[in-house]
């Protein structure tokens, strides 16, 4: 699944970034790279962007970007 589909309070691990070039570098500079644990923290009242907890920082990404971040939900964090 991709980061934009991640539910609130679910933990996930980044598996791949599906963007190239400077945009990819930017995300990595913010600490978002394969293996990083992420969590949805809150969503803008207008529905987009969403802020994610990444390495103790709160990083807001627009949906179009979050869609390029592939994640894997960590076991036991899925809320049913």
């Amino acid at each position, binding site marked *: 699944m991709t980061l934009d589909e991640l539910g609130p309070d679910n933990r996930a691990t980044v598996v791949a970034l599906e963007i190239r070039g*400077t*945009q*990819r*570098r*930017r*995300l*990595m*500079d*913010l*600490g978002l*790279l*394969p*293996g*990083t644990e992420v969590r949805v*923290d*809150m969503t*803008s*009242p*207008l*529905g*987009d*962007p969403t*802020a994610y*907890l990444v390495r*103790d*920082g*709160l*990083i*807001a*990404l*627009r949906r*179009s*970007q979050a869609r390029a971040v592939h994640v894997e939900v960590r076991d036991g964090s899925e809320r049913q």
Partner: protein
Amino acid sequence: MSNAHLLDQAAALRDDLPADFQDGIVESIYADAAAISSHTVSRDSQRARLTADRLLDRALTHRVWGFAVMGVLFFAVFWFTIVGAAAPSAWLYTLLVDNGHAWLRDGFVALGSPAWLTGILIDGAYLGTAWVTAVMLPPMAIFFPLFTLLEDFGYLPRVAFNLDRLFSAAGTHGKQSLSMMMGYGCNAAGVTATRIIDSPRERLIAIITNNFSICNGRWPTLILMGTIFIGALAPPALGSVVAAGSVVTVAVIGVLTTLLVSWALSKTVLRGQTSAYSLELPPYRRPQLWRTLHTSLIDRTLFVLRRALLMAAPAGAVIWLISNVDVGGTSVAAHVVGALDPLGLALGLNGVILLAYIVAIPANEIIIPTILMLTMTLGSGMSGAQNGVMIELGPAQTETVLIQIGGWTLLTAINLMLFSLLHNPCSTTILTIWNETKSLKWTSLATLLPLTLAFAVTFLTATVARLAGWV
């Protein structure tokens, strides 16, 4: 040179590396960072953000409360600015404009200074400087520290977060909402504030559209027009509400214009992919109250004084000169007003207003005094105004002067409000745009696009009003 072999060698080595080796560089650094921090950092609780921060964020980005708090906070900033600045402005006005001007004038006359010298220096340059200082200094000294406190607390990034979707739809960055807000204090400061936007494309859009945030120097014009011409349409009890409503409407038109022009720019000259959007929401921090007040106060005071000396003083001198230098028995001002009148009337304005806007490019805050002075001195033999000496009148007198001598109508007032909102930025702002972009092309666009828009919109409203027979 001989070093070229190093580049060849680098290229050869690069060839043998896996395609994603660049990722590896960042990954290696982060892996090291993670290893070091896992050895050195220990925590009491789990990796959760501080609960207070989380709760605050829940409230400040809430669907209802988020916007409510935002509205209240920004309203409070403006309210404090307007209310708080009134007394110091009046005091400075009495000191610098009323008394200071009279003292200096008497002094110059006593020293035997020729009339033209006293005119240029005291009635022109000094009065322009004094006027700008009195009108601008108090609001700037209140607005910016308040804004800075919100910034230091960490609130402003949340505003960008809340509003991002609007700006995203216009093809720009959510942080533009903040350079916009800053522009309500001063467009030059707003343009500088666009530095927080790191993509050049989105930053240029924010710079060019900052003009549509009504700065401190333009509020007085809007408020006066709203009070005299629009508030007067309503029954007396509702007058001030209607007047305030008209000013707010103009501000809202400004916001819509910002979004619309941003959208148009991002679809045309500043086309391009929306660049990587990233916004870090920093932890909330207690602002350093006194330090912030002190720093902003000093920064702003120096800024306003510098601007008054560099920009308003020459403008004041020019106003005096064009009113007092005669060519063929009529003053230069009268000639220019006569020449500008046809264009001005086509725009629903008049020649006096256009001339005032030309001489007031350095400082918008002298628009109204200049208009009053020109209207009275060029009008049919009214006394009470001297050539080239800017004046201020109470609302009632202003109304008499503008309607009876100037021949103003409701259309003139509405179009003056629109023109004030849309027209080109002041010269300080233009200079700042140049400093920030170092590009003649973008500086020109940022200057001429609003001016063109101002002409187009006022021409449109004037034409519609005339065709409909409202005037």
